[in-house]
Structures are given as structure tokens and as C-alpha cells.
């Protein structure tokens, strides 16, 4: 940031007040840029969720607005902006209005230190990880505030559930993250990526069996922090109507919604940074990457691809699992996740103490863990594709209203169901 500002100021031969003004303008520009990027990402994620959900549920999903439905999120946003901004008469007005902004600010501000690329980071803070974990805690305040200010018992229950859940699950998440911080010796996001390498066996995911475990602990805790199924109790539709955002409408509701989706990307991005080697390209050192714009672009694509896979898994989970109950949620956190993440932290510390970095044993453990992880992943993928294939092989029942190709064919339906339907459909199909 400062380097960029100085560079431009020197180029324009500015000095004194003009320099300061340029710096301020640049800060605002970058903040707006980060906001737009986060907004676009969360908008596209809403579309991705609906498309993936459609595929999982054997339907199509939105595909009418723009090519492949790519502009659907803009249409949705436009609709929500035009809706009436309703504040219930009995609600606590100022708090009610403020709550969605806290959620948005909490999540979007975290995008400032997401390292999309080696140079593509708005602010590489030296306390990056701590900053991310701290600023996203604003979400808790916003959610609890919305639950309280709505003056609705369902909202209140949702808000209280959310507060209890997010605060509880922050403990295992932070402990799991600390394992990586311990190994890399830095809190800076770029520093953590630089400490890893391009190939999978250089990632912290496969550093040793305990970081492998730590990743799953972090992922579980992060899904819970993002209020996603199977931990979506704060907005459990079938229990609490819509949870804390029951009374919200229009753009304020969209605020919660965008915050949730931005949070999904954020957690995937953090996991990519901490465990998956971020923007590192296999076979290219960070020094080489710094010299070439092409390699920078490849790094950005690699980061986005890794994070997108994480988002896909979160969406996949949502449309597969039922929801836990409140007591089960808490027992998962305090009886399993917290002790396990403490164990991971301690084991990583012992590992660092006993096995010198870069030694033969260290490298053997990397390769071993990577091989094991790869095997687990392959078995899992094989099972998934096995199931998909076995469903596809089965007799597809298209003898009723659908043609041989499996697509809806009004003519076939007319032939089967007689004349009056034929008339109706012939009018529609021409």
C-alpha cells in the first residue's frame, strides 16, 4: 500500500499535503475494490449454491438470466433492493437497522488480508491470522443484535443460539490455526504461504498427521461458525421459522445473506492459505513467481481454484446432511473438537522439538502423510463416483410423460393422455 503510494507520488513528483491526499484516496479506492470483490464473490456463490443444489436434487437450477444463469445474482440483488425496507413497529429501530451492517463489515473487512496472489493482497498485516479471526467475530455481535432488536421470540432464540455457537466454535478453530502458526513461526498470511511450497507434500495439510487432523478440525469449526448445515441452527428454517433474520426484508436481509456467503469463501480462502499452499505454483519458487506477471496470474488462478473447491464442499455438505440439535452441537464442540485441537497443538509443538525441520525423517513424514491423504481422497472420490454411476445405470423411468432422451416432451404426454392435453400443448409449442 505505502510502497504503491510512494511510487505513484514519486512518479507525479508530489510532496507534502498532496502526498497525504493521494494516500487517503488510494486507501478508499482499495477499500472499495475489496468491497466489490467480496460482493461479487458472495453474489456468484449464491448462484453456485443454487446451481449445485439443483444438480444434487436432480433439477436444473436457475439458468434463465444471462448465459448459464450467471447474472441471476444481479437480478436477485436488484429485486431485494426494490423491496420495502420494513422495520417492525415493536422492534428496537436503531439496533435493528445497524445489525446487518455489522455482519457485512465483519466479513467483508476480513477480505482485506486474503492473499489472492503474491502481490494481490490489500494489506499483508503482520498479525494477519489474528486480524481475520478477530474481525469476523463482529458477525456474532451483529447476529445477536438482530435477534434481540427484532422483538420476536424466534429471532431471539436464533440470536442466542448463534452467539453460543459461534463463540464456542471459535475455540477449536483458533487452536487448529495455531498449529500452523506454530510451524510457520509467523502470523502474516503471505509469510505462511511462503513457508509452504507448490507440491502437495510441501503443504501444511500434509506436514505431519497432526496438521492433517488440524485441517479437518478447522474445517468443521469454520462450517459451524458460518452457520452452515449441519450446524445451521441459528437459522433453522423448520424450527425457528428463519432464525435471527425472520423479521428482515429487502436489502437488510440481503446483507445477512451476502455476509453468510462471503463467509464461506473466506473460510475456504483461509484454509487454502493455511493448509493448501495458497498461490504457490508447483515447481516455481516464490522468487521466480515475483518476477513474472504470467506466473502471478497462474498463482491467482490456483488460489481461486483451491478456494472454490472448498466452497463446493461446503455447499455439498449443506445439501446432504440433516441438522444437529443444540445439545449435540455443543457436545461435538466441547467433547471432541476442543480436546482434539489441543492435542494437535501440543503434538505439533513436540514434533518441532523432536524432529529438526528439513531432516530425512521430516521429509519422510511429509511424503507419508501426503500419500495417506491422497489415498483417503482417492477412496472417497471412488465411492462418490461409484454411487453416481450406480444410480445412472438404473432403469430410467421415462415411459410416462418423458421422451426417450429423458427430456420433457409435451407431444409424448399428449399422445398418452389424450386430446384435451394435446390441444393445450400444441398451442404452447406451436
Amino acid at each position, binding site marked *: 500500500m505505502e510502497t504503491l503510494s510512494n511510487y505513484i507520488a514519486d512518479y507525479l513528483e508530489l510532496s507534502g499535503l498532496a502526498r497525504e491526499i493521494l494516500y487517503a484516496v488510494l486507501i478508499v479506492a482499495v477499500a472499495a475494490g475489496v468491497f466489490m470483490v467480496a460482493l461479487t464473490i458472495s453474489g456468484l456463490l449464491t448462484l453456485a449454491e443454487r446451481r449445485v443444489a439443483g444438480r444434487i436434487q436432480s433439477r436444473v437450477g436457475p439458468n434463465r438470466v444471462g448465459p448459464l444463469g450467471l447474472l441471476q445474482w444481479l437480478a436477485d440483488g436488484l429485486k431485494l433492493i426494490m423491496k420495502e425496507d420494513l422495520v417492525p413497529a415493536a422492534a428496537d429501530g436503531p439496533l435493528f437497522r445497524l445489525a446487518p451492517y455489522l455482519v457485512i463489515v465483519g466479513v467483508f473487512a476480513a477480505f482485506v488480508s486474503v492473499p489472492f496472489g503474491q502481490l494481490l493482497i490489500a494489506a499483508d498485516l503482520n498479525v494477519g491470522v489474528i486480524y481475520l479471526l478477530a474481525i469476523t467475530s463482529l458477525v456474532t455481535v451483529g447476529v445477536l443484535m438482530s435477534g434481540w432488536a427484532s422483538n420476536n421470540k424466534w429471532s431471539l432464540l436464533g440470536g442466542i443460539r448463534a452467539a453460543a455457537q459461534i463463540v464456542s466454535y471459535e475455540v477449536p478453530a483458533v487452536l487448529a490455526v495455531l498449529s500452523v502458526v506454530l510451524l510457520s513461526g509467523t502470523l502474516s498470511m503471505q509469510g505462511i504461504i511462503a513457508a509452504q511450497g507448490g507440491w502437495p507434500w510441501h503443504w501444511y495439510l500434509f506436514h505431519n498427521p497432526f496438521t492433517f487432523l488440524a485441517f479437518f478440525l478447522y474445517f468443521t469449526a469454520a462450517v459451524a461458525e458460518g452457520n452452515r448445515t449441519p450446524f445451521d441452527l441459528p437459522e433453522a428454517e423448520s424450527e425457528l421459522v428463519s432464525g435471527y433474520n425472520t423479521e428482515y426484508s429487502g436489502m437488510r436481509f440481503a446483507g445477512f445473506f451476502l455476509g453468510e456467503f462471503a463467509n464461506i469463501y473466506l473460510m475456504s480462502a483461509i484454509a487454502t492459505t493455511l493448509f493448501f499452499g495458497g498461490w504457490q505454483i508447483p515447481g516455481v519458487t516464490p522468487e521466480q513467481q515475483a518476477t513474472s506477471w504470467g506466473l502471478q496470474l497462474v498463482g491467482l488462478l490456483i488460489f481461486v481454484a483451491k478456494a472454490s473447491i472448498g466452497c463446493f464442499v461446503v455447499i455439498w455438505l449443506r445439501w446432504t*446432511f440433516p441438522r444437529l440439535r*443444540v445439545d*449435540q452441537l455443543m457436545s461435538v464442540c466441547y467433547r471432541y473438537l476442543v480436546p482434539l485441537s489441543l492435542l494437535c497443538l501440543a503434538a505439533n509443538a513436540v514434533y518441532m522439538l523432536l524432529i529438526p525441520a528439513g531432516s530425512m525423517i521430516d521429509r519422510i513424514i511429509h511424503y507419508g502423510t501426503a500419500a495417506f491423504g491422497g489415498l483417503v481422497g482417492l477412496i472417497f472420490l471412488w465411492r462418490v463416483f461409484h454411487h453416481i454411476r450406480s444410480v445412472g445405470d438404473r432403469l430410467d423411468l421415462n415411459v410416462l410423460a418423458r421422451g426417450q432422451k429423458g427430456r420433457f416432451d409435451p407431444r409424448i404426454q399428449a399422445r398418452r393422455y389424450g386430446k384435451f392435453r394435446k390441444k393445450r400443448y400444441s398451442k404452447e409449442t406451436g
Partner: protein
Amino acid sequence: MTEVLQSTPDREELILNMGPHHPSTHGVLRFIVHTDGEIMRKAVPDVGYLHRGLEKIAELQTYPGYMPFTDRINYLEVMFTNMAYATAVEKLLGTEVPPRAEVLRVLVCELNRIASHQITLGCITMDLGAFTPFVHLLRERERINDLMEALCGNRLTFNYMRIGGVSQDVPDEWLKQLEAFLDHFEPVIDEFDSLISYNEILIKRMGEVAVICAEDAVGFGLVGPNLRASGVDWDVRRDLPYGAYPQMDFQVPVGMGEKGTVGDCFDRFIIRVEEMRQSCKILRQCLANLPEGDIKAKVPKMPRPPKGEVYSCVEGARGELGVYLISDGTPKPYRLKWRTGSFAGLSIIEHISRGLMIADLVAVIATLDVIAPEMDR
């Protein structure tokens, strides 16, 4: 109800008004929930939001004229309400139903049972937070709707049966289509099992939750799958045989306490999955032994049954579905009373709700399969 609302609780209680429009009340159903945080003290059901006076209407209609109204008792088990009413009038008239019509009735009833259980199972999983199985089951139900539409022109309110038989014979190719559907659907049940039935979270949510012991189940008059889940082996199809059921070979699944105690939510869930398999079995037998002949007995256009009263019941998707009918010799019924499974299912909720969590209440309503229109009539 007003007493409950106005009474001052002796300890701090949160009184929640769940319904009449709440996403998981399955129609227009209302509970007044007394909670201590997330734990319920009690849930008091409030009924009557869908009362349409369907029993009174019967007194104003001729006997055949009331048939379309039976469709509206419960939109999920239309064939059973049709059949219960038709058999009651036939008993009064002393009509013999032709064998082909009897088998056709069993056939459509079992098809309807599958469709009804698909909705029920889907709603259970959806209320517990898993949306996908619901959509998958609706996709399969669409095939049944298509079949029914081909058979009688309607997709939901079939109005297929008549006093003395059924309205139409099966169209060409229909039986082949039904067989194709069965070939397709039986593996889908296994797929459903592997997708969600034995999901660890679902078992945790339903096992040991809201256990109804056999005494309570009988005492509160539970019927059908709810009763059998509590370990009481009673099925009208087998124990009070009617229609073509004596010719059919099928098992009656009973709750085993597979993932907890006998009579918990999981038993009520898994018993319905098993019943779908048994229905497929009955359907295959119907297809194999469909006799030729008439589909409707000769019944006068405006029958005047002799004076008398009769109770007739069938095993619906929600258990014993009974009609109590009094005739005074005129073309219109003197009195008609419906006995439905949903009302009994609802009445036990207050008894078992103490100490459950709010999330469990949703599971209890869903697994007891309470359908508001059937309850209020």
C-alpha cells in the same frame, strides 16, 4: 386455550406461539409451546383452523354425491377415504363388489400409500434439516401422480371409486407402466436408505427421542404406523380383512427399537420405509392376479339404504380410517362420522412433549405424520 395463555407461570417460562403458519406445522396447525430456554415444559396443540364441516355436508348430499367430498378429507390419502366411504355405503346396501374392482381398489390404495409415505418421509428429513431426500422423493411421487392422472384424470383429488366399484378401468399399457414404475422404484427405496435413513446425524436426532410406550399408544388411540412403531402388531388389512386383501401375501412391519427404544421417532420413520417395500410387494401381486370382469356392481343412481348404522374401516397411510354411517332410509345419510389417524397422533403430543427440545417437537410432529385437514375435517 385461553387459560393456558393467560395463566401466570410459577417459574420463568417462555411461551412460544408455533403456528398456525410455521414452516414445519404441515398445514395450518398451532402449538402453544411452554419452554424453559430450549427445553419444552409442554406443547399444547390448538386445532380447528381447517374445519370445513365435511361431516355436516354429508347430511346434505345424496350417497353418491358425497364421494367427491371424501377426497378433501386428506389430500395425501384420497384413495383410502374414497374406499372407507364406499365400503360403508356398500355394507349398508349389501352390495357385492366385482372381483376386478376389488383388486383395482387394492392396487390404487397401495399406490396411494407409497405416495403418502413418500411425502411423510420427505417431510421428516426436511424438518430435520436435510432438504435433498425430500426433493428426490417428490420426484418419484411425480411418477405416481402421472400414473394416477392416466388412470382417472386427476393428480391429487382422484375421486376414483364409486359405490359398488371403481369409475374407470385401467387404460391400455397402464399396467406395463406401473410395472416399469415398480422396477424403478424398489431400488430407489434402497437408495433412500443409503442416502439418509442410516445417516448418523439423523439417527442421533431420532433415536431415543419421544418414546411412546405400547400402553400409551393404545390408550391415546394411535393407529397405523404410529401404533405399530410402539410394538403393537395391529393392521386392519390383516386383522380385519376387507376387499381383496385376504388374497394378498404381505408382512406387517413392527417397531423393533433398531436405534434406540421401541416407539421412538426412528422406529416411526423406518417402519414407513419398510411399508413402502411391502406396498410394492402387494402391487406386484395385484398385477399378477388382476381378474377380468366388471368394474362396477349394479347400484341404483340414487340408492336408498335401509334403516341402520354401520362402521367400516380401512388401513390408510395414517392407520385405521373409519366411517361411521347412520341411514334413516332416505337418499341422504342421517349422520356420518370420520375417525382419522392424525387426530389421535396430535392428541398424544402434549403428553410426550415434556422435557423434549424445541427441535425435537418438529421431529415428533413429522414422525407422527399429523396432517391438518384430516384432523379438522
